[in-house]
């Protein structure tokens, strides 16, 4: 069975939710610890959301220098699928696995809502189960989710198809070019601010036109990684 590691940092909140999402997708979740140098041979890694180190210094900055991150960076460079959700996305930018950075929301407030996203790149390790242009709804909850990058980087992301997800309807945090998530050139590393792990089980996801809380659009992200691992 495909094994997907979920790293717990001091201050991680959604590590258990991410493990659960991995299980719903049909893989075996493996709890990994920030202070270890051991990825336990997992096939893919999830850096979960939360407030690692209390968001001290900069969101994700201290976690990005933790022992396990050396192994995550090395694995990412070997092509192992790595997903960063929210605080995990912030860690990926701080670790320079993804370009740009995330700053406080332009309106200054924490935002929590069911967010519509458009899939812009459906050929990454974490998005291959979607189709380009598909609109999905998953929860978003952040205070520092404003994506920024230099004009040059933004042009490269757009030109090379490295924007994975864009916000649709509402730009909830002032992200440049409505960017909600990006990927690296190889497509194995993806970071996004919204939380796919909160939309994996009917009854506990966002509302849909069919029924309250029935949205499971996030599950495809985790299933995509399984496909990517099997195809590798």
């Amino acid at each position: 069975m495909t094994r997907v590691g979920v790293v717990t940092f001091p201050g991680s909140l959604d590590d258990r939710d991410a493990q659960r999402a991995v299980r719903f997708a049909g893989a075996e979740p493996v709890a990994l610890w920030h202070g270890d140098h051991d990825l336990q041979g997992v096939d893919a890694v999830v850096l979960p959301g939360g407030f690692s180190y209390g968001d001290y210094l900069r969101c994700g900055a201290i976690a990005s220098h933790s022992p396990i991150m050396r192994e995550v960076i090395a694995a990412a460079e070997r092509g192992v699928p790595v997903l960063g959700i929210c605080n995990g996305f912030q860690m990926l930018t701080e670790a320079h696995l993804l370009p740009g950075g995330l700053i406080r929301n332009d309106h200054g407030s924490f935002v929590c809502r069911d967010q519509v996203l458009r899939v812009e790149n459906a050929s990454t390790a974490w998005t291959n189960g979607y189709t380009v242009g598909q609109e999905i709804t998953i929860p978003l909850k952040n205070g520092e989710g404003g994506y920024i990058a230099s004009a040059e980087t933004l042009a490269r992301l757009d030109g090379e198809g490295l924007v994975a997800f864009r916000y649709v309807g509402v730009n909830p945090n002032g992200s440049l070019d409505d960017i909600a998530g990006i990927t690296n050139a190889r497509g194995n590393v993806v970071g996004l601010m919204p939380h796919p792990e909160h939309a994996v089980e009917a009854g506990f996801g966002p509302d849909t036109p069919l029924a309250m809380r029935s949205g499971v659009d996030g599950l495809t992200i985790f299933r995509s990684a399984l496909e990517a691992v099997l195809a590798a």
Partner: protein
Amino acid sequence: MPKIVVDVMPKAELLDPQGKAVAGALTRLGRSEFTSVRVGKRFELTVEGPVDADVLSAVREIADDLLSNSVIEDVVNITVVDEAGEHSAASASGVLA
């Protein structure tokens, strides 16, 4: 023991929501002469032993790699404060050099 002070500011061209909130508070206090506020960070690193070229170069590296993120921030100042509290500019960081 001597201290090395590192000042980090959000990049000038970026929105600084924290500064904007403080500027809004000033306006509400009737201090309308202040048109903008930017909020940065000050780090004080206490050093054991003398501050030599090696220590300064280590601080510059730390300032660029950990204390700041060059995508969103600039290291604007590195200063050595000796035991008597005298300040001396330790030269600009790699960002400004």
